[in-house]
């Protein structure tokens, strides 16, 4: 971290116009980067930002730990007899909830970036247009992975014992990351659509709270009134958390996986083009 005061102009080395001229007479331009290469480069940018401002990892470390501890001990006794019983059911769900909640920061970072001139520069580059957005999401996928590892570690310490073993757990996380990547396109859209960071946060909470709470994350849907079951059973978050829970449990939830990937495709198909339309119009 550099905290040095801005240097005075007087201390600046002179501009070397002769070597500048030489640089300008360079040999032709390289071909434009591929869509993948441009996206990965923007992903690299997201990682550099994490490197320079590591405090931003707070929300993917402390927040999930808090979630696991809070809900396990708050509901564990009442819902499953004991916290260690409850965590077997809760952990995959709370993992989904935490990561889905973290996705909203994608919108916030898109929104704060637009305010800055660098966005204009990216938009004047002859590159695959969605690569800027994909770059954000790639960087965020890393954050989701970190959050997942943190939650699992805490869970294992608290007595979570997945029957699916290592393979089941990794498969569960992989499914969650794919879904979160797709889900984040909602936030890139809002990040471009709304004017302030605060309104992005506000809208995100409005969407995320009902979606995560009205799901099977905390309790089994069978215990709910019929009209609520109708919503909960069709909530994409329910499909994701059921799929992740089953995978970690060592079973192969074909139906739930199909629903999860179906929702993921739908989210990208709807919010991807809307995001790009807003991005091009901005």
């Amino acid at each position: 971290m550099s905290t040095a005061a801005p240097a005075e102009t007087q201390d600046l080395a002179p501009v070397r116009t002769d070597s500048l001229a030489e640089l300008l007479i360079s040999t032709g331009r390289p071909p434009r980067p591929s869509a993948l290469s441009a996206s990965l480069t923007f992903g690299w940018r997201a990682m550099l930002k994490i490197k320079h401002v590591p405090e931003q990892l707070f929300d993917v470390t402390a927040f999930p730990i808090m979630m696991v501890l809070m809900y396990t001990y708050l509901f564990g006794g009442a819902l499953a007899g004991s916290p260690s019983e409850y965590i077997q059911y809760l952990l995959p769900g709370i993992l989904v909830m935490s990561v889905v909640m973290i996705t909203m920061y994608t919108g916030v970072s898109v929104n704060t970036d637009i305010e800055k001139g660098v966005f204009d520069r990216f938009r004047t580059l002859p590159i695959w247009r969605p690569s800027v957005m994909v770059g954000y999401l790639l960087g965020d996928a890393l954050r989701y992975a970190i959050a997942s590892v943190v939650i699992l570690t805490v869970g294992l310490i608290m007595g979570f014992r997945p029957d699916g073993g290592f393979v089941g757990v990794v498969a569960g996380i992989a499914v969650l990351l794919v879904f979160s990547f797709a889900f984040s396109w909602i936030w890139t859209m809002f990040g471009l659509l709304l004017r302030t960071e605060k309104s992005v946060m506000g809208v995100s909470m409005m969407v995320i709270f009902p979606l995560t709470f009205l799901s099977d994350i905390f309790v089994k849907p069978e215990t709910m009134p019929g009209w609520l079951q109708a919503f909960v059973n069709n909530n994409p978050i329910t499909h994701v958390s059921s799929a992740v829970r089953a995978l970690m449990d060592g079973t192969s939830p074909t139906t739930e996986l199909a629903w999860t990937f179906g929702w993921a495709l739908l989210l990208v198909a709807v919010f991807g083009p809307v995001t790009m339309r807003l991005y091009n119009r901005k």
Partner: protein
Amino acid sequence: MSSMAIETAGLVKTFGDNRAVDGIDLSVPAGTVYGVLGPNGAGKTTAVKMLATLLRPDGGEAHVFGHDVVREADAVRSRVSLTGQYASVDEDLTGMENLILLARLTGHAKKAARERAGQLLEAFGLTEAAGRQVKNYSGGMRRRIDIAASILNTPDLLFLDEPTTGLDPRSRNQVWDIVRAVVGHGTTVLLTTQYLDEADQLAARIAVIDRGKVIAEGTKGELKASVGAGSVHVRLRDAERREEAARLLGAVLDAQVQLEPDPVALTARVGTDGGRDGRGAAEQASRALAELARAGITVDNFALGQPSLDEVFLALTGSDTGHHHAPATDLEKEARA
């Protein structure tokens, strides 16, 4: 292929009721510096953004090197580069990381990108600051890294949107040197500015924009001739003799004399009648001084200045620009940056 870098016809952009750009026709020859001069809010930035494919025009046409900015936006993007009014690099990254990022995005392989970034930092005198986050750079350093990022891929056309607003005179001169070096290589530069002397220093042709319209266009010489070579500012010791001094100055200079709010100050434009260069203006001014002395009017202070932007506008539009009342938000942001 057109020899014109930019050609626009009736370019229009509206934001609600505000016609920010209201029918602009421009022809910018390739290989030159073209100055777009105007006060805050005149529509300079909006026009540049349309030419750089950032904004979609609401009317008219614009071609950059023969490519339509809407239909062939990608072809335009591969040949232009924009340095906006505010830092157009990522402030959280270091200077080096920013340049590598852009080098990668313009298609340089990893090693080549690092090399190119290092060379540019060196040429711009930023090697020492390479590893520091741009948010810790001074104003002059920011402008340098901005411009370095813009010329990284040797653009054929470089847009510089008010490149020296908010810079101290020394940094400003350095930016001018860079612009000259860039143009010397053959890049076309479209420069927007609020300062007449900046356009004067760098641009071959100048367009003056006000309220979204081009109100004058031509070479520097043509433009100056239409405005006058400069202004004589006089401060008298005795306010009571101002009327007399104004009459005298008006007669000797054959020019309009303006009484300033300060009761002892007056301003006269000189050089409108054939005095096309600074010397002509200076000679006329010294004659005027002599006349004042002969009449026994004591002059405390005297200055011969280039016409200010306000004076250019006064001459071109016959009305005040409202320059000082223009929304100050841009400047405030700049001051904070």
